[in-house]
């Protein structure tokens, strides 16, 4: 039986890596994937903790997080496509029309 803290630490590492990706990558889709990594790390935490505290709420939450992820994926990708149509790029550095 692996102690919860291991899972927590692992998820923390994954979370950090995910945020690192968000901060460094320029390709919108990759950034989105990094966000997915973050959400998954959170899910891991939830499930680990739900076992730890011994109720199902955490797992239900994971369930909804997945839903949210799906919804965001749909909308986000749609937005990217729309943008790509206009600018022929999904490099986030090209989102620089609005500034200052």
């Amino acid at each position, binding site marked *: 039986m692996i102690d919860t803290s291991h899972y927590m630490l692992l998820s923390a590492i994954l979370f950090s890596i995910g945020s690192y990706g968000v901060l460094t990558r320029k390709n919108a889709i990759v950034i989105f994937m990094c966000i997915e990594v973050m959400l998954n790390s959170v899910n891991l935490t939830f499930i680990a903790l739900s076992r730890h505290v*011994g109720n199902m709420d955490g797992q239900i939450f994971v369930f909804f997080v997945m839903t949210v992820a799906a919804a965001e994926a749909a909308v986000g990708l749609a937005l990217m496509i729309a943008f790509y149509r206009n600018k022929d790029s999904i490099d986030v550095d090209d989102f620089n029309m609005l500034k200052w």
Partner: protein
Amino acid sequence: MEAILFYLTALVAVLAAFFVTNCRNPVNSALCLVTNFICLAVFYVMLEAPFMAAIQIMVYAGAIMVLIVFVIMLLNLGTAVKSRYTHGMVAGGVLSVLLLIVANVFLRNGNATGTGGDITSAVIESYGHTELIGRAMFVDFLLPFEIASILLLVAIVGAVVLSKRKV
């Protein structure tokens, strides 16, 4: 035995995540992401949440990843990736390390005190994970479930509205 499995999977998961952030090619990133998802599914199983593992595979690896890869192909970003790395790398690295340290500290010094719930592995054995999930979902969290449906609806409508070519 279990420990070894855990550490191996953890290693794979971390590496996968790392490559998600560092692959030159988005497609590779996507594949690494799938790997990462699968590792998590393994963890879920180890955490006595087989149903979640299944969902994980289906929803994520199945739905979301397909969607992502599909989009990658659609925008044929297969190989052509413009400027890959950013000047922000250092900042990003430093910050995420800091984040990790902070998280580490509060994970070490904090303690999950909320133990003592009635769901023990014995209970899971006797009832079965899926039923417990179902019960929780439909008895305690009925409303969120409904809201989730609205959320998905909104997402669908939104996606349609946004990607329709013309009015």
